[in-house]
Structures are given as structure tokens and as C-alpha cells.
């Protein structure tokens, strides 16, 4: 009953909130005022249901033991998905099936679908790259897409002016991305948390403004067209074949990215990143070189963005500054957040869901960004560890064994 009353109140409140913007549309040219009472009613109904659910979830969350402050540490019980993933009898056939499906995928569907899949895989790599900076090192980067732009423009310009091929430009794009990562990281080494976020956001915006306005170098808002598709030993491939080829290329790159990030996670530098994420001061006090750790996190994160930037330019054969806005950065960030910061498999699933869903559910695509925003808020409140939590290595102290050891 209390919940019912409360939810009624919430419904009324949201109807009040949405009244002027959703409920009224003013057309000053035709001098018409359009009242949309029906949508307000829907809002009221939706708010009522959601509020009921919201309170239930919050109560449930409060029932759980409180997580320790100041760290993402949460040795909570692994979810259903987690347990499924750790069951070898299930895990191996599943992985095999997924692998098989991805390999034969281009032979089952038409070029259009393959093209969408390539885009989704590009975002998988972007997500994994940003996962290094944000998920592992805890450095919130809101201008990540700028490095993507570096790679794309590097290939486009080199191809346009010097006729350099895709394969030569691929490492160049990655290295340029990393270089810009260091250049960006260097002046802001001292900053942390919120300041860092806002400065990276600033850098991202500056990059876009420069791309838009420096016509003589970047061809402004018109962009660059007729970029070469990826080549295969100088063979002249048809569009279908080249798309399939790009798809396999992307698959290989994804596999390579997963391999590298996975190895990095358990390396010395990966440990340093995670220490930095948990507590910067303690980490430095333990003798970790902060400058080197932060710069390497930026450089390695940016490297992947530069790399897939080249592929992005080659896939589209056309780029302009509109592909590199803050919204794209936010999208990659929400992929990392949704997937679970630091978790590789989570990031992959999140990227596929977030990129493919709007493509296949056309009705949904209009509300895509709205849902993104809501998801980011809800995830932070109800499941900050993401869809698939990154399981922390923990040291379990077993009392009996310890007693035995000490005789």
C-alpha cells in the first residue's frame, strides 16, 4: 500500500515534469499549439510501473551487504552468466559454436549484414581499447573517439596524397594513435578523476573543431571520399568479396586485441594500472612510476583506436568529422560501462548488443541514445560492475589450513 501511494505520487510528478516539453509543442510559424495529453498519460503510467520496480530493486539492493567505499572492489557472488561461463562442459562447446558461427557468418547472410557486423566488430575493438584506459587504469577518457579519428584521417590523407596502401597505413594509424595518446597524456598527468574527464572531453572537442575548420588539410565538413578499400596482394576484388575479406580481417583483429589485452591484464604493467585505478596515492607510494603507467595506459588505449580508425576509413571509403563526435565517445564509454569495466567478454557482448540492436530493431534506433543514457544511469545504480563483472583475484584465507600449517 505504501509503495502504491508512493508510485502514484511519482507518476503525478513525472506527468508534471513532462507536461511542457512532451505535452505541448508550439509551432510559431503556423501559430499552432499542439497539446498531446495522450503521451502525458503514457508517461504517468510508465512512471508508475517503473517506480514500483525501482523501489523494489533499491530495497533489494539495500538488503545486500554494503560494498566497501572507495574502490570498485566487490567480491559479490558471481551471477548466473558468470557461472555458466566458468563451467568447462558448457563453456567449451559454446565457444566452439560461437567461433564456427562467426567464421561462416559471411556465407550465410548478404553483404549488408556483413557490413553491419564489421561496424559492430570495430566497436568491439574500440571498447576493448577504451577498456584499457578506463576499465583497467581507471582514467576516464571522454575524448577517446579523437584517436579513432587520428587513425581514420591518417589513412585517408596518406592514401589521398601519397597513394599509400591499407596494409602500410594500418600500423601507422595505430602508432599515430598511440603517439597522440602520449601527447594528450603528458600535460594532464597530474590531473585525476573529474578534471581528467573534462580535459579529455575538451581535447576531443578541439580535435573535431580542427577537423571541421582546417579546410586546407582535412577538407573540412565535406570530408574525404574515395578512400581505398583493404587490398589483398593487388588482387582486384568485387565489393562482396572485399566486404567478406574486411570482415575476416576484423575478426582477426578482434582476436588479436583480445589476446593482447588479456595478456596485458596479467602483466606487470597491467597490475600497475589496476593499482592506479584502486588508489593512486597508495600505488605511487608502493613505488609504481605514475607517469609511465598513465602514459602507457593512454598510449595503448589509443593504439587500438588508431588501428580500427584505419579500418573504419577503409570500410566506409568516406570519412567526415561527423563520425567523431562526443556522442561516439559516449557510446564507446557506455559499451565499457555496460559490459563491466575491465571485463573483456562483457565489453564484447555490450558492443554487439549496443551496435547491432539499433540496426535490427529499426523502431528502436530513434530511441537509441535515450536508452543509452538511461542504461548508463541504471547500471551505475544497480549493477556498477557491469553485465559481466571482472572477477578479481582474491586471496582466500582458510582458517583450518592455516592452523594446520602452524601446527
Amino acid at each position, binding site marked *: 500500500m505504501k509503495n502504491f501511494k508512493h508510485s502514484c505520487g511519482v507518476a503525478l510528478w513525472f506527468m508534471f515534469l513532462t507536461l*511542457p*516539453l512532451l505535452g505541448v509543442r508550439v509551432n510559431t510559424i503556423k501559430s499552432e499549439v499542439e497539446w498531446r495529453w495522450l503521451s502525458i498519460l503514457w508517461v504517468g503510467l510508465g512512471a508508475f510501473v517503473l517506480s514500483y520496480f525501482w523501489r523494489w530493486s533499491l530495497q533489494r539492493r539495500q538488503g545486500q551487504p554494503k560494498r566497501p567505499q572507495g574502490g570498485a572492489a566487490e567480491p559479490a557472488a558471481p551471477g548466473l552468466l558468470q557461472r555458466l561461463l566458468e563451467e568447462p562442459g558448457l563453456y567449451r562447446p559454446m565457444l566452439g559454436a560461437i567461433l564456427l558461427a562467426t567464421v561462416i557468418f559471411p556465407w550465410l547472410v548478404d553483404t549488408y549484414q556483413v557490413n553491419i557486423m564489421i561496424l559492430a566488430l570495430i566497436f568491439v575493438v574500440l571498447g576493448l581499447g577504451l577498456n584499457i584506459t578506463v576499465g583497467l587504469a*581507471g582514467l576516464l577518457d571522454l575524448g577517446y573517439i579523437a584517436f579513432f579519428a587520428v587513425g581514420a584521417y591518417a589513412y585517408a590523407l596518406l592514401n589521398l596524397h601519397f597513394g599509400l596502401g591499407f596494409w602500410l597505413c594500418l600500423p601507422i594509424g595505430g602508432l599515430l594513435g598511440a603517439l597522440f595518446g602520449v601527447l594528450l597524456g603528458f600535460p594532464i598527468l597530474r*590531473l585525476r578523476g573529474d578534471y581528467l574527464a573534462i580535459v579529455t572531453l575538451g581535447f576531443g572537442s578541439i580535435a573535431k573543431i580542427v577537423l571541421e575548420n582546417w579546410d586546407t588539410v582535412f577538407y573540412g565538413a565535406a570530408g574525404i571520399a574515395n578512400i581505398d578499400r583493404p587490398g589483398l596482394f593487388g588482387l582486384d576484388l568485387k565489393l562482396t568479396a572485399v566486404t567478406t575479406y574486411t570482415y575476416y580481417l576484423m575478426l582477426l583483429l578482434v582476436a588479436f586485441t583480445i589476446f593482447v589485452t588479456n595478456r596485458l591484464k596479467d602483466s606487470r604493467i597491467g597490475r600497475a594500472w589496476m593499482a592506479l585505478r584502486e588508489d593512486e596515492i597508495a600505488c605511487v607510494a608502493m613505488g609504481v612510476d605514475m607517469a609511465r603507467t598513465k602514459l602507457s595506459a593512454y598510449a595503448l588505449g589509443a593504439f587500438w583506436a588508431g588501428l580500427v580508425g584505419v579500418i573504419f576509413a577503409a570500410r566506409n571509403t568516406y570519412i567526415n568529422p561527423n563520425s567523431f563526435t562526443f556522442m561516439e565517445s559516449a557510446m564507446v564509454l557506455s559499451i565499457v560501462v555496460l559490459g563491466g569495466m575491465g571485463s573483456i567478454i562483457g565489453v564484447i557482448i555490450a558492443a554487439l548488443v549496443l551496435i547491432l540492436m539499433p540496426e535490427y530493431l529499426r523502431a528502436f534506433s530513434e530511441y537509441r*541514445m535515450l536508452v543509452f543514457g538511461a542504461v548508463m*544511469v541504471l547500471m551505475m545504480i544497480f549493477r556498477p560492475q557491469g553485465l559481466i563483472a571482472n572477477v578479481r583475484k582474491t586471496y582466500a584465507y582458510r582458517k583450518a589450513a592455516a592452523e594446520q600449517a602452524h601446527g
Partner: protein
Amino acid sequence: MDYFLELFLSGLTRGSIYALIALGYTMVYGIIQLINFAHGEVYMIGAFVALVVAGALTIYGFTGVSILLLAALVAAIYAAAYGYTLERIAYRPLRGAPRLSPLISAIGMSIFLQNYVLLAQTPDFLPFPALIPDFDFMEPVAHIMGSAELVILLVTALTMVVLTVLIKYTRIGKAMRATQQDMTMARLVGINVDRVISVTFVIGSVLAAIGGVLVGSYIGQINFAIGFMAGVKAFTAAVLGGIGNIPGAVLGGLVLGLTEAFAAGYISSAYEDVFAFGLLVLILILRPTGILGKAVRQKV
């Protein structure tokens, strides 16, 4: 000389708008150390509500300054409501969570609100009714200063005075300052901290809405995306002046506005935003505490 004066005035005008929005950032940051990323969106919503109210009233046949006042009042009420709701939904459940969580939640809220307005209204720029009446100035003032600029400067100055009085002398102002100094201590002496934070959001949102209405009638058109840049700029202003510091926010806003106006006027208007961000980066590198900020010692 005229050109210089014109730039100076336009810098002051936009600077005072930045200052109005920056106050919201700085007050919230001072109390809960959170960049309220969605603050720019509250400003945008304020402008939109004013547009809808003023537009509807104009169409139903009302005219005059009273419309502007009424639209501004409704916009302020709605911005306050949005600010309050925002805090309740996106920030309050995250008290005590790691610092990255509320920041991401704030970004999510900002994206959500932008797209809400985009879907509910239109993606296009909507004409904002020119509501600030024209006064006649005497020469030589007339051809460098418009009435809108004067109104903006006056309203901003008045708002600052009211805010200062509110924070210095009223009960809630004292509670706000106490909470800013030490939240636990404030709670111990019987201050309802949650209420103080809500009030802070409400005040900040009202200021942002005032800014939104002023900008709308000054520039003459608004769309759903205006909040984002304004928010980033206002945050820059807050950092410039020293975040958490109220006179600092005003000073930072004015410095930023003047910098932009002169850079746009004498160097290049296309790169105006680059100068704003450049200034932010420079300040953060050279003097991270801002112009008026005090160094904070971090306890380990």
C-alpha cells in the same frame, strides 16, 4: 576603439551567462565533489520551457514584457523540478560509491535529457520570441550596446547579489556552507544534509534556467544541443575561478567570456571553442586550483 568596446561588451554578456551556469556547478561540486554533467541540460530545458510558455501565450494573443516574466518564472520552476529529480534519481542512490560511478551516471543523465528534448520537441533550431523590449540609448552608447545586453548584465548582477545574501545570511545558506566544510560534522550538529544537497541543486538549476531564458532571447534561437557546450564552458569557468568557490565562478565566467570574445574577434571565430578549452587546459596545468582557489592538502 568601438570594435574593442563591442567585443568587451559581448564578452561581458556571454561571460555573465557562463557565470550564471557556473554557479550551479561550483555549488554542487563544493558540497558533494561531483561534476553535475547534466547541469547544462537543465539550462537547456529551462530555455525550452520558456520557449513553449512564451510561444503558446503569444499564439493565444498575449503580448508584452509580462510574458517574458511569466515564461521565466515557469522555466525556473521547471528547472528546479528537473534539478531536484535529477539529484534524487541519478546521484542520491550513488552516495558513497566510487567516484567514477556518479560521474558516469551524470553523463548518462545528460545524454538522456538531451535526447528526451530531441524526441519530445524537434532536432531543429526553434525561433525564440524576442521578448526583451528595446530601449533607446543615447549616442554614443546606442551603437555598441543593445538592450538585451544591458538586461543580461543587470539580471546577472542582481542574481549574484541575491545569491550572496542567501548564502551569507540565511539559515539554509549557513547549512550549505557547513555541509561544504564537513558533511559528517554538519550531520552531527543536526543539519539535514540530504535536504541541503537538494536545495543546492534547486538553486543551481534556477540560476541555469535564468541563464537559459536570457540566452534564448538574446540569440533568438535554441535547440536541444545548446546545453552541452554551455555546460562544458560553464564548468571551464568554474574551474578557472577555482571550483567550489562562488566569487571564483563569477570571475571565471567573465574571464572566459572575455577571452572568447576577443579571440573570436581578433583571431578567428571558427576556433572560438578551441580557445576556451585551451584556456582550461592551461589553467589546469599551471594552477589547478584556479584563480581564486586555495590549495587543498590531500590526506593520505
